[in-house]
C-alpha cells in the first residue's frame, strides 16, 4: 500500500508558477512576494491621480463574500477592485442564502452561474477559502480576505510593503509581534512573510495562554516579557485584543494585559530609536496601545491603510492574469 500523497497542493499557483488564487503566504517564494510588493508600488501612484482608475479588470466581476463582519478590509477590497475597473458585487452573508439553510457549495455554484470571475472571501473557519478554491471552476479566482485563525495574506503583504517603504529591505531586521498570537490570522501570515522575505529575527511577545502550541515551529523566538522582547527591535507590530479573551480564562483583565503587554511610550523606548509601530487595526486604545504611541511620530498605522488598497489591487490583477493565462493554455491543449 503506497503512502498517501497528501502534501498541501500548490493550489494557488498556475502552471506557470504565477498566482491564480491568493490563499496564504505558505507555498510562496521570496520572488512571488517581491513581485506582489513591486506590483503594489506601481499602484500607489494610481491613488494619487484625480481619476483613480486603470482598466486592468474591465469587464470582470469581483464578488466580495464576507461571511464575517469587516469594514476596512471589505472597503479596501471594493476600492481596489473599482480602481481596476471591475464590477463589484458585495454580498452580505448574514441576510443572504446561507442563513436560510442553503449550503456554501450551492451558493458558490449559483454565483459561478452568474459568471463571477473572482471571489474575495472572509470566513470565520480556517481553510474556508481553500475549500472554496478547490470546489470552484477554473474560471474563478479566490482571494483570502481572512479565514479563522489561519491566514490574512493581503494584510501581511500590506504590512510588508509598509516595512519595505520605511526600512528599505528585510535583511537584518528584527521584528516583534505583540499580543494575541493564538487567535491571530494576521500574525501567522506576517511571521511567514517575514521569514520568507529574509528578516533576521521574528519575535512573538505574549503570555503562554495567547500562544499557539509549538509556535517555535513557525520560525519565531518567544518572549513572555515585553522589555526583553522589545530590546533593539526595528519594527513593533501590535495585535488587536478581542474583549472575549477575558471569558475563556486566557487573560485576567484588560488593565493587567495593558500593564504587561500594552505599548506605551516608555516601553517603545526599548526598541531602536528609529523603530516603526504598526497595527492591523482596528485599534483598542488603552488596551494594546497608548494613544500617544498610536498617533505618535513612529506610528505608520495610517500608512498601512493606504498601502492596503495598492496591495489588494496588485493581488486582484495578478490572480486574474494567472487565471487568464491558465485558461488560454487549456484552450491551446484542446
Amino acid at each position, binding site marked *: *500500500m503506497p503512502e498517501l500523497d*497528501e502534501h498541501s497542493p500548490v493550489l494557488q499557483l498556475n502552471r506557470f508558477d504565477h498566482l491564480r488564487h491568493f490563499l496564504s503566504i505558505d507555498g510562496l517564494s521570496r520572488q512571488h512576494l517581491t513581485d506582489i510588493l513591486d506590483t503594489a508600488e506601481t499602484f500607489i501612484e494610481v491613488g494619487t491621480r484625480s481619476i483613480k482608475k486603470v482598466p486592468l479588470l474591465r469587464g470582470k466581476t469581483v464578488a466580495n463574500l464576507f461571511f464575517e463582519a469587516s469594514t476596512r478590509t471589505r472597503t479596501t477590497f471594493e476600492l481596489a477592485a473599482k480602481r481596476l475597473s471591475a464590477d463589484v458585487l458585495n454580498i452580505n452573508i448574514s441576510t443572504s442564502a446561507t442563513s436560510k439553510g442553503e449550503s456554501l457549495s450551492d451558493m458558490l455554484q449559483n454565483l459561478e452561474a452568474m459568471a463571477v470571475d473572482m471571489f474575495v472571501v472572509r470566513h470565520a473557519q480556517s481553510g474556508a477559502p481553500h475549500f472554496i478554491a478547490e470546489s470552484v471552476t477554473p474560471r474563478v479566482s479566490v482571494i483570502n480576505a481572512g479565514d479563522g485563525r489561519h*491566514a490574512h495574506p493581503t494584510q501581511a503583504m500590506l504590512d510588508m510593503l509598509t516595512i519595505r517603504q520605511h526600512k528599505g529591505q528585510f535583511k537584518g531586521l528584527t521584528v516583534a509581534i505583540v499580543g494575541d498570537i493564538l487567535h491571530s490570522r494576521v500574525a501567522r501570515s506576517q511571521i511567514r512573510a517575514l521569514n520568507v522575505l529574509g528578516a533576521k529575527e521574528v519575535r512573538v511577545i505574549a503570555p503562554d495562554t495567547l500562544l499557539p502550541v509549538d509556535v517555535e515551529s513557525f520560525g519565531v523566538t518567544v518572549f513572555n516579557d515585553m522589555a526583553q522582547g522589545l530590546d533593539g527591535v526595528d519594527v513593533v507590530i501590535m495585535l488587536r485584543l478581542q474583549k472575549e479573551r477575558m471569558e475563556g480564562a486566557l487573560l485576567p483583565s484588560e488593565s493587567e494585559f495593558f500593564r504587561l503587554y500594552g505599548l506605551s511610550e516608555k516601553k517603545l523606548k526599548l526598541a531602536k530609536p528609529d523603530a516603526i509601530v504598526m497595527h492591523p487595526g482596528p485599534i483598542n486604545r488603552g488596551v494594546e496601545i497608548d494613544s500617544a504611541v498610536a498617533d505618535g511620530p513612529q506610528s505608520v498605522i495610517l500608512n498601512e491603510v493606504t498601502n492596503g488598497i495598492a496591495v489588494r489591487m496588485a493581488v486582484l490583477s495578478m490572480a486574474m492574469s494567472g487565471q487568464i493565462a491558465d485558461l488560454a493554455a487549456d484552450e491551446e491543449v484542446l
Partner: protein
Amino acid sequence: MSSRLLLKGGRIVSPGSMCGQVVDVAVADGKVLSIGSVPAGFTPDTEIDAAGHWISAGFIDLSHTLRQPGLEHKATISSEVLAAARGGFTTLCTPPSTSPVNDSAAVTNLIYDQALEAAQVKVLPIGAMTKGLQGEQLSEMFALRQAGCIAVTNMRRPFRNNQVLKRCLEYACSQDIRAFVCPQDAALAKEGCAHDGAMASKLGLVGIPAIAEVLSVAQWLILAEETEAQVHFSQISCARSVSMISEAKSRGLKVTADVAIANLMHTDAVIAGYNPMYHVEPPLRSEADRKALLEGVNEGVIDAICSNHEPHESAAKQAPFAETAAGMSQAELLWSQMVGLIQTGQLRQDAAIRALTVGPAAVLNIESGSLESGAVADLVVLDPDTRWTVSEDSLLSRGKNTPWIGKSVQGRALYTILDGTIVYSAEGSF
C-alpha cells in the same frame, strides 16, 4: 442454510494450534468440522480453492456505526452489513449514536431485528450509559443487557460531573455489563477538530490536546481500580495512554483497550491541505503517538483494532474542515490498510490478526475469534496480494467518505463465512 464447505489449501493465520499451517478446513452444520485432515466420507456442497490465501476467524469490530435508526440519509443497516461482510467482519459492535439514541430496549430490539433479517454479520449493539447520552441520568442498563446490548458507553459525550461518572461505572458493574469508555475531557477538547500540534497551529484549527485524552484515561484508571469495575478504553490515540494502560494492566487492573485503524495509518501531517476526509475523532496525532500505538498492538497492550467505521453522506464533508462531520468510511478498507502495515513491517502479522479476532473476542467475552475444530464457523478467506483501485462505485457502504478513493490498495477478503454459510464472495465483484 448452512452447507458443507471445504476450504482447500489455505494458510491458517488465526491464533490456535494450526496457526501457520497450510491445510484444508472442513465446515458442516455451522461449525468447523476439522482443520487438517478431512474426515473420511466428507462430501462438501461447495469447495473453495484457498491456495495462496489466508484463512482466519472472522473479524470482530468493536466500533462500527450503522446509522439506523434515524440517520438513514447517511447509511442503513442493510447497506452497511453488506459492506461489513465484504470487509471480512463476522461480528460487529455498533455504538448508541442513533436517532433516537440507543438507550432503551426498544431501539436495541429494532437494531437487532433489522440486522438479523439482513443475516450478513452478527450485530451486537452497544447501549447508552446515560439517557440520551446526556451524561446526567443512568440508562436502564439491565433492560439494555436483556435486549442484547453487549456493553454500554457514553461515547465522547461529557458526564455532568464525576459523581455521575462514578455511579455509571458502579451500576454497570453491578448489572454485569461492560463499560466502554472513549476517554476525552470535554472542556479540553472543546470545539477542537484536529490534534493540538504544530500542524493545527499553522492551519489555524482549534486543537484537541493529547492531555484531553490522557487526563481522562488517568481518571478512569483510578476509578476502575477503586470500583474494581472492568473498563474498556475505546479508540485511544496517544502514546501516553498506551503506557498508562500498560502499567495498569501489569498491576492487574481489568482494563482493555482498542485503537482505530485511522490512528495507526495516519498522522496529523495529512491534514496539511485541509482534506476533510481526515477529520476524525479521536484526531490523527503525531508520529510518536502513531508509533506507540503500533507498538501497543504488537506487544498486546492494545487488545483490538477497530474500524471506527462512520459512513457519511457526501454533503457532510463538503464544507470547511472544522464544519465537516468527523469520521471515515472504513468497513471495506480496514484489511487493505492492515496488509500495508504488515508488509511495511510496522505491524506483526500475528499481532494484527489477534487484534481483529481473539483480542476483541476476549474484550467482549464471547466465544468467537478462534479457529479450532468445533468452533462456530465464522471465517474469512483473505487474499493478501491482489491490488485494486478504490472508487466510490466499488464500495458497498453508503459512506464514500474515505481518502482512499482513486488510490490503489492491496489485499481483500475473498470469502466471508457466517455460521458456515458464505455471506460474501469477491467473485465477479471487482
